[in-house]
């Protein structure tokens, strides 16, 4: 009985979906006007990690591409921004965009060899490419070796500016995934997620679908990376091309619910808040996050949202067709 009631209430919520979404966005838009700087920066982080996680979810949760090398696009995006603005005094916006395009081209080039590797080999392959880039950048004089850059162009921006940039990329990533899932490509992706072999014999062009996701993921991840480095002001190769980035994406998507649009939304809030709180315990923060992930995988292997959906049959941003 209780469960039925909840389901009814939830279905009511769904009827007002667009109303609720518009309201939420309106509230988010006003945050810089009334919230403290600290709160604004928390939301800023949430939006940036949301974009990263949403893209990783698109790859791992739908296209079956478990990449551990997404940091390569963050690094490429961040470095393009740094180099173009510091060495050439290029405008901010075009630098960010060019970073995205460079990441996209790089993704296209490496896709030829890397898509020949399957499953675990693909995972290791992507990681190796990112590691190779890290070593290459820290030995490349043009980008000042491991010394890094201060992105001074960021000084012209206020936290409010960055908040809106992060909001656009964060919510934009959700919209991108939602639109993809509602499209022809999305139908194929969901089929691939559920059974790749069967999808292939139903006529789904698995390779093409995966490649498109990989390219979109590279582009958006790169833009989000640039915005992050704009916020952080300082970039150097060990952090920019470090696997910590992807570890965060995996954590967010797994605890939230892989293969759902809502999963990363829930996961990112938990992750960012936890991380902020755990700053005081720097030595053990990774341990605590790891422990939480392990416990959650055992208790609710489909993540918060995945488990909720299974129990209640509720999807807020539903890609369902009728």
């Amino acid at each position: 009985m209780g469960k039925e009631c909840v389901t009814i209430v939830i279905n009511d919520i769904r009827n007002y979906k667009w109303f609720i979404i518009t309201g939420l966005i309106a509230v988010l838009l006003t945050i810089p006007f009334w919230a403290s700087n600290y709160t604004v920066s928390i939301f800023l982080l949430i939006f940036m990690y949301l974009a990263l996680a949403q893209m990783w979810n698109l790859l791992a949760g739908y296209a079956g591409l478990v990449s551990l090398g997404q940091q390569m696009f963050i690094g490429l995006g961040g470095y393009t921004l740094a180099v173009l603005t510091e060495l050439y005094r290029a405008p901010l916006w075009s630098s960010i965009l060019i970073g995205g395009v460079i990441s996209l081209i790089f993704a296209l080039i490496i896709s030829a060899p890397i898509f020949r590797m399957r499953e675990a080999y693909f995972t290791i392959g992507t990681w190796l490419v990112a590691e190779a880039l890290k070593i290459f950048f820290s030995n490349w004089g043009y980008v000042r070796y491991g010394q890094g850059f201060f992105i001074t162009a960021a000084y012209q921006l206020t936290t409010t500016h960055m908040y809106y940039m992060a909001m656009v990329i964060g919510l934009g990533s959700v919209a991108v995934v939602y639109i993809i899932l509602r499209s022809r490509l999305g139908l194929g992706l969901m089929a691939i997620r559920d059974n790749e072999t069967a999808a292939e014999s139903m006529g789904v062009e698995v390779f093409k679908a995966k490649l498109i996701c990989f390219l979109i993921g590279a582009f958006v991840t790169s833009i989000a990376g640039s915005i992050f480095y704009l916020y952080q002001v300082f970039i150097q190769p060990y952090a920019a091309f470090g696997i910590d980035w992807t570890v965060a994406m995996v954590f967010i998507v797994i605890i939230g619910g892989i293969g759902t649009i809502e999963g990363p939304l829930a996961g990112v809030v938990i992750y960012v808040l936890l991380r902020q709180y755990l700053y005081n315990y720097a030595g053990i923060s990774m341990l605590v996050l790891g422990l939480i992930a392990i416990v959650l995988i055992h208790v609710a292997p489909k993540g918060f949202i995945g488990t909720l959906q299974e129990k209640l049959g509720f999807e807020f941003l539903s890609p369902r067709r009728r």
Partner: protein
Amino acid sequence: MENVLIVENLTIAFGQLLAVNSLSIEVREGEILGIIGPNGSGKTTLLNGISGLYKPKSGSVIFKDIDITDFSPSRRCRLGIGRTYQVPRTFEKMTVYENVLVGGVYGASLSEKKARYKVYEILELTGLLHKKDLFAGSLALLDRKRLEVARALATNPQLLLLDEVAAGLTEAEVNEVLRIVKYIKESGVTIIWIEHILRTMMEAADRVLCIASGKKLICGNPKEVLAAEEVQEVYLGVEEG
């Protein structure tokens, strides 16, 4: 009658094991070719060779005068070869409607709007219409098998490969499957049907091919094939012993 499919000296190997050993078959337009044979005789492997899941070691597969030996499974599907899986491989987290829609949108290259009518028609035929919004993962065996057939039909096949769609079903359910298969045949689709339940072969198949150890044993009229001594020996003998 014209041959829709010609398989020539097809050999599919797993390491040293020749699961399909230099097998040749011709499938005529509009017929139901039944395939029988003991477990492990290479029936499903042959089907996988035709649908493109396995690459052959040698030999060729020709569909409507096109050599498709090197084509991917998805390309073969779009050309007009639909298939079902022995153990249903339905898309568990998608609804019944969406499962079939995948076939219409990708296999038959229709827009989602145009595929919609076709999908409803097929759901009606296969008796799944009232379950269209259920998740495939929640279906019972008969419905999953129905969904396998529905999905394959949505790809608009000229050649349909059925892999034990009646296995594990009750007598009444088998009749239901027979009805559906006969209907599909009447709509002009050529069918290759692997089945252990010999009654279905007697009732529906135009010709029956018996394979053992990856080789063709005998092919012809269902009655004659089932009565043939070598079939009795190899097929029923192994099956019971």
